[in-house]
């Protein structure tokens, strides 16, 4: 048993402060992005989610310039961008995509400026890498309470709006006819998505944030057909990907080239993708087996039907 543990977890894993913080942050953020992301996927807003993450890199790099934690920058700009998308996008989905693209372009332009300024103004190298691709082991412990609080608020909002979100994903006309304030709900959801994406950006980087917001929910939708189940399964898949990613990244310090750990974000995103593929294969095999079983059952029924010889022909 000990032997196994030693192979899985490199020495010092359980004693490391940054590892503890990373495990907590990763789990909390994965639960939130899982729940929020299910609605991102079924509302068809994956592109908006991706844009909010990337645009966040402008805020993250600006916050770095001002000496604040990147999370506040990610979130400030993502919420503003969400508002702009809603304002420019009007009602039609096509116009919305265009608006999202425009906001994305403008945001990345700002990011280019701020990242340049970051690089020239500070001696620390790797700011750009941290903002864009994250560094979970470097998340400051002081941020823990804020991250947990933001996550809790997001989950509460999703729980409160749960049925309305489902009904309006089914049909916005149907929801409106039942008295659901569809537009206000859409704006509220976009803001919560901005918060969730920012938390993901803090964890695995602005560019990779969508992997966590879209990946585990898309996997969960393959595995379960219950709405509540999808939220929980998505959260758990996210937690599994992040924790396993942390373990592998920690272990990778002992892999070649020795002394240089591989980035956590790489492992997390790779695992998210792997889980998606595996879920697809599993459901595919299950489906094939089910249809083969019902096929042979109907063949059996047909051959056993002596009264209706015509049926088998």
């Amino acid at each position, binding site marked *: 048993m000990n032997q196994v543990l030693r192979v899985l977890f490199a020495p010092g894993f359980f004693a490391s402060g940054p590892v503890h913080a990373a495990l907590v942050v990763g789990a909390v953020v994965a639960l939130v992005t899982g729940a929020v992301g299910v609605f991102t996927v079924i509302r068809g807003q994956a592109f908006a989610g991706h844009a909010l993450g990337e645009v966040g890199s402008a805020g993250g790099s600006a916050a770095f310039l001002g000496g604040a934690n990147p999370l506040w920058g990610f979130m400030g700009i993502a919420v503003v961008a969400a508002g702009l998308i809603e304002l420019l996008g009007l009602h039609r989905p096509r116009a919305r995509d265009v608006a999202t693209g425009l906001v994305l372009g403008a945001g990345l332009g700002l990011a280019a400026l701020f990242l340049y300024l970051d690089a020239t103004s500070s001696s620390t190298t790797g700011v750009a890498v941290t903002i864009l691709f994250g560094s979970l082991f470097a998340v400051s412990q002081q941020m823990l309470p804020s991250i947990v609080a933001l996550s809790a608020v997001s989950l509460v909002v999703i729980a*409160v709006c749960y049925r309305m979100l489902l009904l309006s994903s*089914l049909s916005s006309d*149907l929801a409106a006819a039942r008295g659901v304030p569809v537009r206000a709900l859409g704006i509220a959801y976009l803001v919560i998505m901005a918060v969730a994406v920012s938390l993901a950006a803090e964890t695995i980087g602005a560019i990779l944030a969508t992997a966590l917001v879209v990946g585990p929910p898309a996997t969960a939708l393959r595995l379960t057909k219950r709405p509540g189940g999808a939220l929980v399964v998505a959260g758990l898949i996210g937690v599994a990907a992040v924790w396993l990613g942390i373990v592998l990244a920690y272990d990778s310090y002992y892999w070649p080239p020795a002394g240089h750990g591989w980035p956590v974000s790489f492992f997390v995103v790779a695992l998210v993708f792997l889980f998606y593929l595996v879920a697809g294969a599993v459901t595919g095999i299950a489906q094939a087996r089910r249809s083969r079983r019902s096929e042979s059952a109907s063949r059996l029924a047909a051959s056993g039907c002596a009264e209706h010889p015509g049926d088998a022909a």
Partner: protein
Amino acid sequence: MSVPTLDPSADDAILDVDGVSVWLSGREVLHDVRFRIMPGEFTGLIGSNGAGKTTLFRVILGLQASSTGSVLVGGRPLTRRNPIIGYVPQKVFLDPDMPLRARDVVALGLDGHRLGVPLGWGRRRQAVDAMLDAVDARRFADARVGNLSGGEQQRVLIAHALISRPRLLLLDEPLANLDIRAEGEVVALLARIAREQRIAVLISAHDVNPLLPVMDRLVYVAAGKTASGTTAEVIRAEVLSALYGQHVDVLRVHGRILVVAGAEGPSGVTVEETDGAAVGPDIVSLR
């Protein structure tokens, strides 16, 4: 244009549409629409593509403001939420990825507008099961709704609309995309529910024929204008010609009704194709 027959004292009407006109993007999409529906009555809203059926539903639901006229539902003016109306929209795109079983969709009809997560599992489940039985959808209650056939989805959406016990059920083209058998089943189902539970039904369609056996009255829409009454009163050459503003013939063949336009003279009938924006009457296909 309306030809009220049953003695409709306005107080009893479940739906009273009075002189409604709607302008959209500078065009009058509905003009002076007036008709009344009594409790338990089965009414068809017949018109071709672009006639204004969906727009009229949206007005009745309070989703679209009318320029003139008024709508009373159950004797009261419209509010933002009208619990006595059940609604089945024309287009509900049910993605196979949606994590919703048929029973979840029906349950959302019960409390989908509420805040918070659902409580009271047992009671909720009972109500949903009873509703699924009523529309003969229990068989696929636990299937993903996106994987169901068009006819099965239609039943689920009808159950969704009925579970909140409305007194008026609005169905926007529920027969589109159904084959003849499914069409007949859905119509029979709706007629039975309307009769048993005394729910008034307003159902839009571009073809009168599937509804002929069950319809008490109909409202015919053409180019935003309407005529209402019984089938015999409305489906007549004079009435429809006046409505379309051009000569229209009504043919009855093997118990089916054909409305034919575009006769240029006595030499024969040119059957006009109905394209999306057509103002002319429907050419009912013989099947």
